[in-house]
């Protein structure tokens, strides 16, 4: 599972775009812009998933995150928009910017030190096998090379993770009921009581 050639170049382009879009999510002044930048980050991450041959997760990311969760976010933003942030005198950030930067540096450092002992295990096992893999993939032809990722994920999901799957459906039901209960207005509350 190594990327090389144009796939590696594509990885770097996607990684840089993802990072920029993520920074724009934090720095955008209007909440709708933040949400749109987050959508673009999520699409970039989905493309990275495709580069990792995880097509099922990429599709779910586009359908569930971009198509479901982010649309929900946009609707709520439009419901509650006060347009106060658009004026330049309104402060966007809390007064905790320096503590936040220090905590972020500590976080990044701890990620680095958590990863560095395991670095040896992350090396690609053998470069020649990777080259052979590419040659094989190229000779197999573009149209015939159907990924088995979705099939494998489905099998594993129902064989190993059937109970978490059912718990997840229950969780979604509870969340749905809770959301309806929390978001009803005073008029509706009177009507039901």
């Amino acid at each position, binding site marked *: 599972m190594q990327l090389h050639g144009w796939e590696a170049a594509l990885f770097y382009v996607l990684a840089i775009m993802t990072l920029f879009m993520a920074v724009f999510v934090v720095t955008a002044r209007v909440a709708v812009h933040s949400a749109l930048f987050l959508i673009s980050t999520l699409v970039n991450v989905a493309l990275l998933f495709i580069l*990792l041959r995880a097509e099922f*997760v990429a599709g779910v990311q586009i359908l569930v995150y971009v198509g479901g969760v982010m649309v929900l976010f946009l609707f709520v933003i439009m419901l509650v928009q006060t347009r106060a942030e658009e004026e330049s005198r309104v402060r966007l950030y809390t007064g905790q910017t320096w503590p936040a930067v220090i905590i972020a540096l500590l976080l990044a450092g701890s990620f680095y030190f958590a990863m560095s002992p395991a670095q040896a295990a992350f090396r690609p096992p053998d470069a020649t096998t990777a080259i052979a893999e590419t040659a094989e993939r190229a000779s197999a032809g573009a149209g015939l090379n159907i990924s088995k990722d979705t099939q494998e994920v489905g099998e594993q999901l129902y064989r190993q993770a059937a109970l978490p799957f059912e718990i997840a459906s229950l969780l979604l039901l509870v*969340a749905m009921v809770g959301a309806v209960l929390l978001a009803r207005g005073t008029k509706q509350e009177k009507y039901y009581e």
Partner: protein
Amino acid sequence: MRISNCESRNSQSAIRNPQFVMVPLSWYLGLSALLFTIGAVGVFIKRNAITIFLCIELMLNAVNLTFVSLSGFFGDVGGQLFVFIVMTVAAAEAAVGLAIIISIFRNRESLNVDEVDTLKL
């Protein structure tokens, strides 16, 4: 090929095998660590409750990227199952959280988290 050779001068596998440019796993993990850190900074410094929520989604997605990259490099599908569950939890969390945000906005006409520091009115 020449362009991508310049780009990954730091990557170890490119030195070992100069003919091919490769992306080692640590680049994926570094990318997701940076994404998570950006999300955490956003949670710390933003004042709008909805933007804080968006940053939480960003952090969840960084974790998903870690899961998928480890699953891809070690050839184990288990990581993608975790991503599936994480996405379910994220969807549930977004639904409940946005409902809470709507009811807060209905009571206070503001989404500034500095003003919403108590749960009761």
